[in-house]
């Protein structure tokens, strides 16, 4: 099974590619999925340390994926990314237990800051399966 640190779920190929490029350049192993269904069935899901999920996926919303993951892998940090964030979305994401909320478009360092913070919190919680 492929080792994986971060699972990126986004229906937009350029976003998946860009995120993969930045994360891999920073030494993280990345798996991607283009919708909620394939993400939840992805083998990497069992072992990854972080999930980046788009708020609006073709089949389900990012918040639904977040809730599903909270049941399957409690404590796994999930970062929501979106191109259209209303204050209401932010509140709902936080209430659903999102580790962070990242608005598109973002710079490489913004992405890395966000990912590092989420992973650090994860490690601090002592649930690193690695």
């Amino acid at each position, binding site marked *: 099974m492929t080792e994986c640190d971060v699972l990126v779920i986004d229906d937009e190929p350029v*976003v998946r590619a860009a995120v993969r490029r930045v994360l891999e350049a920073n030494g993280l192993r990345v798996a991607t999925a283009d919708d909620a269904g394939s993400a939840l069935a992805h083998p990497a899901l069992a072992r990854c340390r972080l999930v980046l999920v788009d708020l609006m996926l073709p089949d389900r919303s990012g918040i639904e994926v977040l809730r599903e993951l909270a049941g399957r892998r409690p404590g796994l940090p999930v970062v929501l990314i979106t191109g259209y964030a209303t204050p209401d979305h932010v509140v709902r994401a936080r209430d659903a237990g999102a580790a962070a909320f990242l608005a598109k478009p973002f*710079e490489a360092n913004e992405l890395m800051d966000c990912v590092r913070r989420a992973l650090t919190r994860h490690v601090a919680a002592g649930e690193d399966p690695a």
Partner: protein
Amino acid sequence: MHTRIGLQIVFAVGLVTALGIALLASIALRTSRREMIAQLTRSADLLSETVKRSTEDYMLENRRERIRRQIEAIGREPRIERVRVFNKQGSIVFSSDPSEVGHILDKGAESCFACHAQDRPLEKPPVQERARIFNTGSGHRVLGIVNPIQNQPSCTSAACHAHGVDETVLGVLDVTVSLEEVDRQIAVSRTRIAGLAIGAVAVAGLLLWWLSWRLVSRPVEALAAGTRRVAAGDLTTTIVVNGRNELSELARAFNQMTGRLSEDQRQLTQADKLASVGRLAAGVAHEINNPLTGVLTYASFLLERARDDPERRADLEVIVRETKRCREIVRGLLDFARQTPPRRQPTDLNSVARQAVSVVMNQLQLGHVALTLDLADDVPQVEADPNQMQQVLVNLLLNAADALGERGGTIRLASRRAQVAPRGHEPIHRAACPKGCDLLDPGTRVGALPAIRVLREHRGQEWGFCLDPVYGRFNHASAEVCEEGVVAPAMCPRCRTPLLEPDSACERCGAPTFAIRGPDDEPIRWCTRTGCHFTWWEGRERRGPKPVVEVSIEDNGRGIPRENLPKLFEPFFTTKGVRGTGLGLAITWGIVESHGGTIEVESEQDAGSRFTVRLPLGAEPMRSAG
């Protein structure tokens, strides 16, 4: 084709009038005929009495020849048809027609009928019963009157001793007069009365037609035409019906209804536009942010890795900066759609202006534009959102560059501190009637501000009127319905409360004034006379000029057509075709407005435009850091 209501009324009332007049005429005719016959009867009776008296002496003296000649002489009178005397046996003793002397008349004959009706001769019945009218063979009617010759003491004692004492009636004098003349007169008067009656019916009909046209047909036609216009979608329709009756009341109710409808429709349209902006912004944000993520992430990633290559670094910085600007524009759109309040901080508008210029510099150079910066050194800081203000200036600069077009031209960006007099500049952000109804009409705008809607009235005619919401300016959104110079009071379009001020007079023309409740419930007054430019906002005038920072962007481009000025700041209003979304100036206006500032545009066609943004300074303006 329907029959006109006026025509139906004319027919109905006309028929009743004609019948009434015909009845009256026939009664008058009958009465006059009866009166004439009665008069003639009396005069015939008098004549017969005269004949009796004049022949009395001859009779007593039994001078029969004289009697005969007398009667024949009387009978020659043209009006007198016949005079004759019967004896008791019915035998004609004397007659103006000598041929019938000696004939015996049956008691049933016309002359005898009055007295012998019951076969029992009366001595002397009243004159009407003794008279009878009948036709003679000569073709005209005659009136006959019989006069009994009663026995008198002188008759029984006369020399001839012809009559006994026990006889009561000795004979009968029968006078017949011609009715030809009377019948002719009756015919003449019948013709005259009929003529008058027809004339009266005609005049009454005409009068009725005119009245029904004025009171019914014309207003009904106006109502029908108005309704058709409304049905065709023209909600600005106002029906003018003069007078005070049910139809003018209906017209007023109709006008109120269309007024409300158009107001609601305008508000719906405006709400619809804003909702569309929101949907568009959301869609754009979602779609554009994905490709922007690709550009920004890669560019910033490359920038991080190009630390040792200053040349590439500078290029990548441009990409990152511009992509971030795109991000800000998209966020600005969302902000506009969501009307987020500005995140204010002390801001130096001069440095905001310089940043804005650096952002648009490339485009300006491409378009052969000469840009002049004229920033005053003493411009104080204002409380503003620097990002939003930069967006305002970028929008205005790009707009100016667009106005210059291919040929290019000059743009002057200037800043200064200024004192702005309220008159002609201060927007009226709140307007209410005395009962508190909101008078601001978001559907009708002057510049970008909602106009102040009142209902004006002159001689029973009412029309909605949209006042310019900038104090002291008179670019009203409605044309005066009346000619200039008439006094047209105003009232609230919702609750119809009069806005007229008691005991008030315009300082220019002396006409009464009306007032609305402006911001902080301060009254703002206008003259009721149409065309009179008097207005007064006591509270605002007392506070005096307002300190502001003024940033103006001036171009010598093609200018803005006059008719486009009021729509300039409306969402989706664009003259740039596919190149424009019609959102730039709407967003610009929204940002300036949310900063409590104003934006003013002056433009002359083919000479250029100047947009002036004014942001208010606080009570203690912070000095610019440098």
